[in-house]
């Protein structure tokens, strides 16, 4: 029986190990042919001339992630507070599966929703082509909601009831107690939910490629297009050859390192929470 457990664990470790090894073995040779500095800090992407600079995509990834967070974080946290402290039992009973359903919608469906509804809406309202940082951020903001809501709600529920009761006893209102006593106590859990949301947003590809316009230049205007790291890989993998192909795998390596860094940040926050 123990062997079975061990074997299962080994499959997981083997998968992570193989993927890491694959990425590094296939991605690193690129850096012997193309300087890493020019690759990461280069602002121009022109594979035809063998110019590979992915800074616009790195900035683009963080840009849409920030936009998603600006939208997803307040809505997510307030929803979690509602579910944890304000809503009646029947409402929570409906909300929980709804949030879970939101998490279960495949990203390509989100993409369709974006391209059929949000893109034309933005195009007709604000002009431009509609494929923009704005739509990508809205879409990602919705996609990270379940992650944020579920983690934040669990953190809020875990705060001892005595905090709330103590606050009430001191004369605070229900709202005051929730926002001043419970919310601060749940903060580390909420932050780890946000970090998980960032991880989800930065790794999202399918929905973004459909709504972002995918322009390989420095992003700026929120009504104009943007290309993220993930999109860069998916978009050009089909026809890329030689150095171009290797540059895409190297893009994957950079993305991998960024996501790893976010995960380390997540476990660091978690560890601090345990210590507290």
């Amino acid at each position, binding site marked *: 029986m123990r062997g079975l457990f061990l074997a299962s664990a080994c499959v997981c470790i083997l998968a992570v190990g193989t993927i890491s090894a694959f990425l590094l073995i296939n991605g690193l040779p690129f850096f012997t042919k193309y300087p890493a500095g020019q690759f990461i800090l280069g602002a121009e992407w022109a594979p035809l001339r063998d110019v590979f600079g992915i800074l616009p995509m790195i900035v683009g990834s963080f840009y849409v992630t920030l936009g998603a967070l600006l939208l997803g974080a307040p809505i997510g946290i307030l929803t979690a507070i509602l579910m944890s402290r304000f809503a009646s039992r029947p409402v929570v009973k409906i909300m929980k599966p709804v949030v879970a359903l939101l998490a279960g919608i495949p990203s390509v469906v989100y993409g369709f929703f974006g391209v*059929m509804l949000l893109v034309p809406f933005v195009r007709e309202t604000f002009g431009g082509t*509609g494929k923009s940082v704005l739509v990508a951020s809205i879409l990602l903001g919705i996609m990270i909601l379940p992650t944020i809501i579920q983690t934040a709600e669990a953190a809020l529920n875990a705060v001892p009831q005595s905090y709330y009761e103590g606050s009430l006893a001191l004369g605070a209102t229900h709202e005051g107690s929730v926002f001043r006593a419970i919310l601060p106590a749940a903060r580390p859990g909420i932050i780890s939910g946000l970090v998980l949301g960032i991880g989800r947003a930065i790794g999202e590809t399918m929905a973004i490629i459909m709504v972002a316009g995918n322009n390989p230049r420095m992003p700026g205007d929120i009504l104009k297009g943007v290309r993220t790291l993930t999109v860069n890989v998916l978009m050009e993998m089909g026809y890329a050859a030689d150095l171009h192909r290797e540059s895409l795998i190297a893009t994957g390596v950079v993305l991998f390192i960024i996501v790893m860094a976010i995960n380390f940040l997540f476990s660091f926050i978690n560890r601090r929470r345990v210590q507290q």
Partner: protein
Amino acid sequence: MKLRKILALVLALTAITAVALAEFDASRTIAVVSREEGSGTRGAFIELTGIQTKNAEGKDVDNTYIEADFVNGTSLVITTVSQNEYAIGYASLSSVVHNDTVKMVKVNGVEASTENILNNTYPIARPFNVVTKGELTDELAKDFYAFIMSKEGQAVVAEDGLVPVGNDETPSYTASGLKGVVVVGGSTSVAPVMELLGEAYTALNPEVEVDVQSTGSSAGVTGALDGTYMIGMASRALKDSEIEAGALGTAIGIDGIAVIAAPQNPVEDLSLEQVRQIFTGEVTTWDALNK
């Protein structure tokens, strides 16, 4: 709360429909839709329309408008264009010709069609040539060549999305039962269809191996002349110097690219220069085109 949300949604939808039904506003930005870097269609399109230029170092520069909407697939170009009346895009002729959701824009007054590509009047098309040094003498190469030009070979060409050069009188091919290796080399654009032709040929003649090397059109012509390749491939017409050196080019199919717009878009005809201006971003609104 819920009622207000539903109301807002209904309002939004009405707004969208109202705008969609409104007149075409020519002062709006042209939504340029382009394929991604590395796409063969994009490579051919930028070359034929002059979007691709050479820089001082002699390297090819792709001047496609950076604010274009980049999508990675022919069907995606078609969907994107069909949903936006201000959009313009391009796609392989074969994939658009049976599609009613977009219309093909005439270029230099010429409609994109198989006939106009065959009679050389539609400008965004290029022949895929096989190149030989004079008439073929090698039995095996001759047989493979005969297969390419046969009904069966041209069917493969058409299946790959090219305009076939064969007609009703094109002869059928019968397997020869020869043995050996056919070495074909040249254009990277022709290579994929040549690989398909090779596979179809090997299926009929199991003892023959077709070796397709993609090295570029110029290398294909040189290789055919110096005997490196039995048959060369070129995705452009032969140069005079090459013909003088004894190279004989024969089109095996023609690659046509249609410029497409949504059916509601009033644009019917663009000059090749206007197409270039749109796709390089020199002209960004529809009304600026007519000036």
